[in-house]
């Protein structure tokens, strides 16, 4: 993801460009005027899996709906493949939508149609003849692993299977861009992982750009290459997923990240934490390491060079966008000598550290 330039010509490798986009809803009935999006600028690179994360009501639903014109911006421009979506008439908008797939939180499958019929629907809408539809739908059902269910109705399927059908349906018109609207939010963690794997595979095999919105950091961590954090209608942070996860700058990002397992302090430690050290206290420090550092025997080296006891309080080793990443919270003597040795060790090994506080 790159900072969108103010110029009218977007970068050639951009699948979607939001250029200073705003969306205001005028007051109506009991609800007052509301600004869903406030001058949002964002570029979605072609071939990327870009995530937009935010709490509910942050404006992400509105943002994704601007891409296929389900909502119109009240200010700014949304460009899809260099075309200004807001300037299209209904007919042109319909043909654009036939080239942009979309999947939904609640799947939105037609209960009256079989699995086959649901995947065939966008093709019928685009006026394809029956034989061609047959030939198109079968391999799609194979792709999502549900070829044996083609005559079933959605009511007979599990949530994960329904979303697979949703994905097959979204891919039916062979789009270059897939919009995912909280596609895994109604699924259990295990099913979520399998759907995310499928999205990753589609992205890799079909070269499809995926723009997904979610409120779950797990989803962003598992599949996206780029991420933007949205809060109160504004993009507060964006970048490569790895960078945002390892160096979160904005408070909202940190808050969202704190929900991830391994990044939270145990309650007892969190309560005992002091901002100033007293004599004999220990410093509580978060170490973040990635790339080559994640593979070194850091802890034993740390203990050797500090020459004192080191307690491990919390920790996680994980992958973000395929890159190894570790986060470790340790405690060691807060006296000047021990701290000095520890700091030298961190600098020598290129570790990012953050002093969280002190405990007795």
């Amino acid at each position, binding site marked *: 993801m790159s900072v969108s330039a103010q110029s009218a010509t977007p970068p050639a490798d951009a699948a979607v460009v939001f250029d200073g986009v705003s969306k205001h809803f005028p007051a109506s009935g009991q609800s007052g005027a509301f600004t869903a999006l406030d001058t949002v600028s964002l570029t979605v690179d072609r071939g990327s899996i870009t995530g937009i994360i935010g709490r509910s009501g942050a404006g992400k639903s509105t943002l994704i709906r601007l891409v296929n014109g389900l909502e119109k911006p009240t200010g700014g421009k949304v460009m899809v493949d260099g075309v200004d979506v807001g300037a299209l008439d209904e007919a042109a*908008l319909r043909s654009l939508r036939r080239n942009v797939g979309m999947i939904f939180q609640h799947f939105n499958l*037609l209960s*009256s149609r079989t699995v086959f019929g649901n995947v065939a629907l966008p093709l019928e809408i685009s006026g394809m003849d029956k034989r061609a539809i047959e030939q198109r739908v079968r391999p799609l059902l194979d792709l999502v692993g549900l070829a044996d269910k083609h005559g079933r109705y959605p009511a007979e399927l599990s949530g994960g299977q329904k979303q697979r059908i949703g994905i097959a349906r979204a891919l039916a018109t062979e789009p270059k861009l897939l919009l995912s609207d909280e596609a895994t939010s109604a699924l259990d963690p295990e099913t979520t992982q399998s759907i995310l794997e499928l999205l990753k595979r589609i992205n890799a095999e079909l070269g499809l750009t995926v723009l997904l919105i979610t409120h779950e950091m797990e989803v962003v961590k598992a599949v996206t290459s780029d991420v933007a954090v949205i809060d109160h209608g504004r993009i507060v942070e964006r970048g490569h997923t790895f960078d945002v996860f390892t160096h979160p700058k904005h408070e909202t990002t940190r808050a969202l990240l704190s929900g991830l397992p391994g990044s939270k302090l145990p309650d007892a430690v969190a309560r005992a934490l002091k901002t100033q050290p007293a004599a004999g206290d220990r410093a509580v420090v978060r170490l973040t390491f990635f790339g080559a550092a994640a593979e070194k025997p850091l802890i034993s080296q740390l203990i050797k060079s500090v020459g004192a006891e080191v307690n491990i309080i919390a920790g996680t080793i994980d992958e973000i966008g395929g890159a190894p990443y570790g986060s470790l919270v340790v405690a060691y003597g807060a006296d000047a000598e021990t701290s000095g040795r520890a700091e030298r060790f961190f600098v020598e090994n290129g570790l990012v550290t953050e002093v969280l506080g002190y405990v007795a």
Partner: protein
Amino acid sequence: MSPDILLRIGGATVDTIYMVAVAGLIGSLIGLPIGIFLATSGKGELFPAPTLNRIVGLIVNATRSTPFIILVVAIIPFTRLLTGTSIGTKAAIVPLTIATIPFVARLVEAAIREIDKGLIEAARAMGATPMQIIFKVLLAEARPALTLALTMTAVSLIGYSAMVGAVGGGGLGDLGIRYGYQRFMPDVMLVVVIVLIVLVQLVQSAGDGLARRFDKKNRKT
């Protein structure tokens, strides 16, 4: 009961079925699009026309709130214009049809409004035209509910058709009043009522069965 009366009951049953079938068919054909219009023309919907929506809604309500027997009498000039007569089976079809239209329209509207808005959004996201959304999504998804709505219409029509008997409309109601009531033949009245009950039962079970077959949502997995 004389064979003559039995023959009359048979004839009256055919008349009733005929009135209900013709009025139900024409009324539904007109009521269905009106119902679709009512369900899709609100503010921000597929064919936004809020003013016309309100006007049509008002007319539908006015027609529905007019007692049927008053409607029958009130539109006699119109009935005469259309059929050349104001009594008999043919004439009865006109007020029955007029009463069916708003009834069907409201039921169709309700059936369509029941459909998850997410489906409409999904279809729009596929690039469907509003017409494609109506035919491929709304009507297809509402089929079980529409079947029940039409069943309910037919049952109500059987009841209404008995009322037109009061103004010489023919059919079972007419027979029941003229023989069972005015000539004091309770056995005729009883048979008429039983035939009506059987008719309603048949229509209802057929409709329920059909709706169940169309319903792929609540089937057991």
